[in-house]
């Protein structure tokens, strides 16, 4: 079933896009990540212009994170104060991201930067996750509990001026640390169309040293607001949000997310993390190869 995308200016197979959204949603429900890291590259492989792909993928992340935020809020596992600071940073980040986006676009390096960022980010996080989850698996097989990680924030965080109390996170740190984290995730969301949960969750755990129970809820909370802001900024600046594309993606992903959530309750989280690490590494390797391979198209055209 072919459907014409009014902003992307081309027709796509609607069922394929819904299916793609569904798979991404399934993964995001199972692993508790936004899934934007898969949507944008897959849409680009399909032939959607990178800008439209990144802009429309952000609203998909909004859709798949809202019900998560809702349930975390009702279980009181969101540090609203921490989340608020990070959202503020995220808003600054989306505006910065928009400026970076337009500069890179003018000099024609946006595609390379997007691909490089994906490789660096997914590669390093994938390796970290693989190492950690395989260690946990080995410990589980031996029947020993994994060595408990000492929870404390990074020494750099302690060096920042000003300190606030974040009760729900069990922290007394400078608000600048989560603010900066928010900025980084805002920039990444704007450039890559990802929610930034990939960067946020490990950073909140290992850099800020937040209490584990509130990490997922708070990161989802931040992602929700930042992706909404990103959609708005894209609508105002690049005008690359395609409502039809976003609708198709959402249709698949919100359904997939619900199925994924149910599946995740039946599988041990240790296995889930190994699988997720594997998927992340595969995408990173594929993107890295794409950078080194001779591309199909040596030439690209931009309309001035």
């Amino acid at each position, binding site marked *: 079933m072919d459907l014409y995308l*009014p902003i992307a200016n081309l027709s796509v197979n609607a069922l394929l896009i819904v299916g793609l959204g569904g798979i991404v949603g399934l993964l995001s429900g199972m692993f508790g990540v936004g899934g934007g890291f898969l949507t944008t590259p897959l849409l680009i492989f399909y032939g959607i212009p990178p800008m439209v792909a990144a802009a429309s993928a952000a609203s998909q992340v909004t859709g798949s994170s809202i019900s998560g935020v809702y349930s975390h809020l009702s279980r009181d596992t969101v540090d609203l104060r921490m989340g608020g600071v990070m959202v503020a940073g995220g808003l600054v980040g989306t505006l910065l991201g928009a400026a970076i986006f337009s500069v890179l676009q003018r000099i024609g390096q946006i595609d390379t930067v997007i691909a490089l960022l994906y490789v660096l980010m997914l590669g390093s996080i994938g390796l970290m996750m693989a190492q950690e989850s395989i260690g946990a698996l080995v410990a589980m097989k031996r029947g020993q509990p994994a060595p408990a990680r000492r929870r404390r924030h990074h020494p750099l965080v302690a060096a920042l001026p000003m300190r606030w109390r974040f009760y729900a996170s069990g922290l007394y740190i400078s608000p600048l640390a989560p603010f900066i984290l928010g900025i980084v995730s805002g920039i990444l969301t704007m450039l890559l169309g990802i929610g930034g949960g990939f960067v946020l969750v490990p950073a909140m755990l290992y850099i800020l040293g937040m209490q584990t129970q509130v990490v997922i809820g708070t990161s989802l909370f931040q992602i929700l607001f930042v992706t909404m802001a990103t959609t708005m900024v*894209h609508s105002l600046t690049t005008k690359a949000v395609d409502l039809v594309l976003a609708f198709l993606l959402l249709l698949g992903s919100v359904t997939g997310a619900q199925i994924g959530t149910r599946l995740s309750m039946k599988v041990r989280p240790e296995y889930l993390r190994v699988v997720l690490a594997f998927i992340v590494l595969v995408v990173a390797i594929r993107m890295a190869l794409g950078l080194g391979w001779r591309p199909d198209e*040596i030439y690209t055209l931009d309309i001035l």
Partner: protein
Amino acid sequence: MRVAARLFLALLAVGLLGATAPQPKLVPDVSQREVEIRYSFTGAQLLLFGAILYPGGKVPADPADIIVVLRGPSQQLVMREKRQVAGIWLNANSAEFRSAPSFYAVASSRPIRDMVDERTAAIYELGLDKLQLSPSSLNDGVEIDRFSRGLTDLRIRNGLFVERPGSVRITDGVLYQATLPLSARVVVGTYTAETFLVRDGRVLAAAVREIEVRKSGFERLMGVFADRQPVLYGLTAVAMALSLGLLAGYLAQRI
């Protein structure tokens, strides 16, 4: 502008020739004066047809040839070329084109180079290798050639540049018809369908019809909405995402 200029040239040529002997006339038409891009638009086939009116109705023994050209609005483009730098393929070099056609399709009753010489083909821009892409940046000639070839090649593979030699059918030397494909990736705007009557290496007559390609209905509305009401458009996208997400969550709890 350029269409008008070329047409003027063509008419001038025809006029000059016409002073010596009565010349045949072209009566062209197209199957659609308007192409509407709707939700299911996957491209279109345009039928360009018409009649050749010879003076006195006498069809000569060696009938003339027909070339039809369908041309889309011009675009200002920047073309970037990837090169391997430190193991990574990235955009290294670029060239600008001031007015390259966004779409160009040509069909002819015989291969064009068998009908007209290089100069005539260049004047009327007959054939993909004769297109004037008007490069405007300060690249040297070799680079411009390379970029022009790259541009043409890219557009051919996207179905935006089409060459169909020998596909114009002429019936009884009088009626001609050709089909040209309009790709789903075409831009909106005014397209021109030009028909040229060629004999003995000269263009005897030329005629132009305009075709309007536009988005209609929902697709047009979306484009206008995104462009004129960006705030409302963004809010709609956000609201859609939130409500679909919440609806799915709500339904999942019920099941």
